[in-house]
């Protein structure tokens, strides 16, 4: 057991190092220069441009040799300092991200987990029912192929413009000040429903199809037939099939997390919902190295942590893994 985790931890550390290095490099490969963009937006003229150019270059440490910038980056990263956002100057990146991340977690975790749980159960259920399989499955295919953006626009149009059940934009009512009251929490929730639904529905279709296919495959496998010939009840067979089919779905969940962030980006733009996705878009347009680094760092840590949790979950749900490990130690 210990060896397994040591090995995993080493792999995660290595992945973290490589990912963060890439995260540092890629923004700097972009053509152009963030300071130029900052100055161009500020509308400075004449000698003020040179003064401010030098000043900003110094503030962001961009006057130093590139290897030194890289070392500085790691040094400050360990101190928890992500630098200052160029685009949202003078706000520190950690403050920008801290303001946006709660919205993301609140959106991504429930939509991903709920769609996974419900999708899997529904897929397993549909695999046994001819009628459901024939009617709802094609619908699931359409859902899973739907771009987040498009579904988002449809939802916004239907529920915000036509039926006016949900508000169209913002993290909470524009008439409110953040406070701890039921009205405010209600407002937070009503603004959250549509972004959540657009992520939830698209993911749901995918999980349902995956599970349905897996179950059919498992029900046709030798052990199922063997159980059947032994006269086991159908329920038992289905239970085994489900237990086997869920494993690839767990792996899929780990893989899916990275993709969901991209989906969140589209959703956040469509519903003008605050969050990290929209920040990434703006950071790219403004070549904001530090904000981009910070956002991707959050994603890297999130994906690695989720994978780590899934590794542990695997141990719990797959007896073969446990058996294998015991074999190792024996």
């Amino acid at each position, binding site marked *: 057991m210990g060896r397994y985790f040591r090995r995993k931890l080493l792999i995660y550390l290595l992945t973290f190092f490589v990912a963060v290095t890439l995260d540092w490099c890629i923004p700097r490969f972009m*053509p*152009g*220069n963030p300071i*130029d*963009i900052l100055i*161009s*937006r*500020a*509308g*400075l*003229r004449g*000698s*003020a441009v*040179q*003064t*401010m150019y030098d*000043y900003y270059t110094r*503030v962001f440490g961009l006057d130093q040799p590139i290897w030194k910038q890289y070392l500085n980056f790691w040094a400050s990263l360990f101190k928890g300092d992500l630098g200052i956002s160029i685009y*949202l*100057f*003078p*706000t520190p990146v950690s403050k920008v991200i801290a*303001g*946006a991340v709660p919205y993301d977690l609140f959106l991504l975790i429930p939509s991903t987990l709920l769609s996974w749980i*419900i999708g899997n*159960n*529904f897929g397993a*259920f*549909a695999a046994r029912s001819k009628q*459901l399989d024939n009617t*709802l499955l094609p619908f699931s295919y359409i859902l899973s192929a739907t771009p987040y953006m498009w579904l988002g*626009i*449809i*939802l916004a*149009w*239907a529920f915000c413009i036509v*039926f*006016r059940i949900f508000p169209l*934009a913002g993290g909470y*009512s*524009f*008439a*409110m*000040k953040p406070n701890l*009251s039921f*009205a405010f929490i209600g407002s937070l929730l009503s603004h959250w429903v549509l972004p959540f*639904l657009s992520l939830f*529905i698209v993911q*749901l279709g995918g999980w349902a199809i995956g599970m349905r296919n897996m179950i059919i495959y498992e029900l046709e496998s030798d052990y199922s037939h063997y159980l059947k010939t032994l006269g086991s009840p159908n329920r038992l067979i289905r239970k085994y099939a489900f237990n086997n089919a869920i494993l690839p779905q767990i792996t899929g969940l780990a893989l899916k997390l990275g993709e969901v962030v991209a989906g969140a980006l589209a959703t956040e*733009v*469509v519903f*003008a919902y*605050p969050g990290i996705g*929209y*920040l990434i878009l*703006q950071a*790219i*347009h*403004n*070549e904001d190295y530090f904000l981009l680094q910070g956002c991707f760092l959050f994603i890297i840590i999130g994906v690695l942590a989720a994978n780590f949790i899934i590794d542990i979950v695997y141990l719990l749900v797959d007896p073969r893994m446990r058996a294998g490990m015991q074999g190792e130690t024996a």
Partner: protein
Amino acid sequence: MRKIVLTALSFMLLLSLALTGCATPTPQVVVQTVEVEKEVIKTQEVQVIVEATPAPSAEAYPRNETLYTTGVQWGPPSNWNPWNGGGYSIGTLGLIYETLFIYDPLADTFSPWLAESGEWIDDTTWQVKLRDGITWTDGKPLTADDVKFTIELADPNGAYKAGLAFQNMWKSLHSIEKVDDLTLVFNFKDNPPYQEVGFYFMYQVPIVPKHLWEGRTAEDITGGANENPVGSGMYMAELMDQDRAVLVRNDNWWGTKVFGKSPAPKYIVDIVVPSNNVGLGLVLQGGIDLDNNFLPGVASLVKGGYGIKTYYPDAPYMIPANTVQLIFNLQKAPMNDINFRKAMAYAINVDDIVQNDYAGLVKAADPTSLMPSWEKYIDQDLVKELGWTYDPEKAKQILADGGYKDVDGDKFLEAPDGSKIDLKITCPSGWTDWMAAIQIISRNAEAIGLKVTPEYPDYGGWLDSLLKGTLDMSIRNEAQLSSTVYSYYMWIFQHPLETIETAQWGNYGRYDNQEAFDLVDQLDQVKVGDDEGIKAITSKLQRITLTDLPTIPLWYNGLWAQTSTKVWTGWPSAAEGDNHYLHATWRGYWNMTAGLMLLDLKLAENP
């Protein structure tokens, strides 16, 4: 047990699917298509009331006291620093911090604001008298000391040396003296740049309180967040969050006494709207009162009875705010050939761009590229003599006469020296209206046998190609509505050439003509209001732009503004009886006449 859970779960799924199914309207509504629109409008009105009633305690900003705006902020607001020109939150300059004068570009007049008067008492001395009784929002009086302190912040030999936008003015400004608490004189060296004095000192430089800014570092002044701004203006900062910034009315504002009125909305909530569909939806719902985003196709909404207004009821709907120009890299062949540029001028079908790309929301530019607000400077005889209109046949003729031939038979022309012409025209990725425009230009060029391919780099890369001069052709529109046509000509003829990269203000094609540069410098030294003097010089400059075509004026980009009359009325418009202020929340517009617009707003009868 498991079965029950499963059934419940699948029921939930069905429900969620059914909800998406709801997107299609019920048959009844479909049948009565004409009725639907009316119904929608009715429900809108009801909805506003419904939203306003529940638990009034929870609503910090009641609908009938709040002006909702969008169009200035593209990301989370980050600061209230008036010196952070590209990043400050809504109204920091103009509504919180104020300028000595304000400028009305449509009437070309300055009006006293913090100042009561400003006069040149001799050729190099400008005397400013401040209004009596103005106070900062912390109660301290605003005096000549604050003005002197503000101007001296940027003095390169002063205590702060802050890199502020008007720092260059210190090249000609000798000193600034306080005469008494309300009077100051600005002492200039010989030949003061009158036009820039009018531009910067009269309405661009926000006056900040000395007692709160004293002792800050230059870095904090230019870049600090200035979290609790203390200004003198009609609004105060209230709140900043991820997707909004809020201002609250300053009930002790000096203008209430002077103008006999104060702004009607107690709050201004500025919303960060990242995409057009959201902006459009909010305007239609009456959730936004003033939207300063470019909304393609808004013309049909203005005509459709949705309660949405623009400045003009018909094309071009918007006030022209800047001129979009085709810029050439004049250091590269064949763009350095006047025949090539002239042929392009005749080849581009600007009407096609205006009608099909913008659906009539913009207006084709005059060949001099001077906006309607500068129309009085246009030398019409020159335009008649040297102007051009869309004429591809003539363009082909010019190219043929200039020696352009198709040598290798690929249907594209080669340069007179036989080399292949394969050019790029660029604009930033995501600027969809411009992307469509350069596609049209590319097709127009192809029609006369020139290979010009549109490309859409990221903003950073695109800006870099302009600053470093590596572009072939591009389009750009920096020079905005302003008090001086000098700012426009400085943009065309930025000089000397080696400063173009750091100046970041025009002449990206590196046009080199000492005569033009000297004329621009002379133009700066014409007194504000001396229209004849300005005409004498700009007429020579127009001759140069019309003969040499350093750029080709294409169309006037609009001051995009959509207003909703559901809650607030009294919006500016071209109609007689309405006010003609600028309804823009953009940076640099509150210190024009957008501030006055707020004073004229009225609550609608049934908000």
